[in-house]
């Protein structure tokens, strides 16, 4: 059973969002890392970049595939996670903690309302 923390919001494309004031932290879900398995490379956006919700802004590569990550929210990248770049396996072992990708200062906080809650995300991924 995939882990779906109750304090996060989720995108249909399997990104999660943790909000603190007007800054959001973004990563990919336990379900997503389980589907990918062995993550070997993570490419993150540059700090300072302006992103629109739905825009592809990062890449996660497993042994078998390369996968685009779509930002669930719009804003400016304030920080990226050097630990996950140095150790991509963190995406698999700590998708909600050490495997976070970037922090973004929200330019359109109302977008959070369009994201899925934990039950809705659970429903989307089924019983996996």
């Amino acid at each position, binding site marked *: 059973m995939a882990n779906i923390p109750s304090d996060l919001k989720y995108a249909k494309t399997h990104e999660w969002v943790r909000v603190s004031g007007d800054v959001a932290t973004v990563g990919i879900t336990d379900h997503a890392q389980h589907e990918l*398995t*062995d993550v*070997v*490379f993570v*490419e993150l956006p540059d700090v300072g970049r302006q992103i629109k919700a739905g825009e592809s802004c990062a*890449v996660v*590569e497993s*042994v*078998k595939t*390369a996968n685009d990550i779509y930002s669930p929210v719009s804003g400016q990248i304030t920080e990226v996670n050097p630990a996950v770049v140095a150790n991509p396996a963190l995406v*698999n072992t700590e998708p909600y903690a050490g495997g976070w990708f970037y922090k973004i200062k929200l330019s359109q906080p109302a977008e959070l309302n369009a994201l899925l809650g934990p039950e809705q995300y659970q429903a989307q991924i089924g019983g996996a």
Partner: protein
Amino acid sequence: MQRTPLYAAHQKLGGKLIEFGGWEMPVQYTSITDEHLAVRQAAGLFDISHMGEVLVSGPGAEGFLNRTLTNDARKLAPGQGQYTLMCNERGGVIDDLYAYRLAGQEYLLIINASRIGDDVAWLEKQLAAFPRRSEVKLENTSDATGALAVQGPRVVEFIDGCFQGPSTGGTIVAQVSDLKKNQIARFGYGGDTIWISRTGYTGEDGFEVVAPAGIIEAIWNQLLSAGQPHGLKPAGLGARDTLRTEVCYPLYGHELDENTTPIEAGVGFFVALDKGDFNGRSVLAEQKAKGPAKKLVAFKMTDRSAPPRPHYAIWSTGPGAAKIGEVVSGTQSPSLGIGIGMGYVPAAFAKTNTPIEIEIRGKRAPAILVPKPIYRKPD
């Protein structure tokens, strides 16, 4: 999609099933990296029942095989096998395979799963034109046959406990682990007979078992329970690919295809020009003498990067840098922790230590040409 006799076993082990060459096969059970490292450090168990088995027998069998395959079948004693290739008239590879002499006039060909149809059609066509065709019998036993590979340095700790020696055909040995590399022997298993060879596709010591489809699951289960205390893990096609890429073994459809010759692919050692005529001989002889126009090279990324993958462009470096070729196999190497791969470049560029760049999603990342195999076991 077709399923092997081990499909239920894969489901029971939680294998992640994907499509491969028309077959529903496990790409991994837990993690490609874990399974790969298990094979390098202990042991891994692979289902290879999707591969094809063709029996070629009769007084004309040796001559027929020497006409259709590149290696010299006359070198095979009963109970011995050799890597070989089957070429068309242009020297292009129809398949790469193993040929075993089981007995004086009996041969077993182990062929790629994705090529069974093409290979059998080609062999039948060649046989129809072979002068001694009435002395050759061709039998495609693929559907009735299962196979598995058990590979890794610790296999010898448990394999003899799974099979009753001595062998009853092929190389005569008291027990399985007495087989030398490339040797094959027949053993009894319950009321059936099976063949076991000391061969593999991983670069590790190991064995391959060919058995009637109806008993392959029993053999799989026995090896799994005997091997688990010695670190044996079931391993899928994902690890099979990373293992063979590390040691630069070709995979049909990547390093080899009908428009690529064994000489270009660097396996000219398995082309016996001196055995008499065979399909593709004149083209291969010319390439061996003059050198081929393109060559298969192996490379290692020199900086952390996304993994190189098939079809990514290979670039030369320096002034006049240009695209010079394409990757045919590439991956993140679990043993080396860096991207590795193989590709074709013009012969003039094919010198080891030449710096190159691999174009990965629009950006060129530095790499260097290295000798094969890319991964070598520490002594």
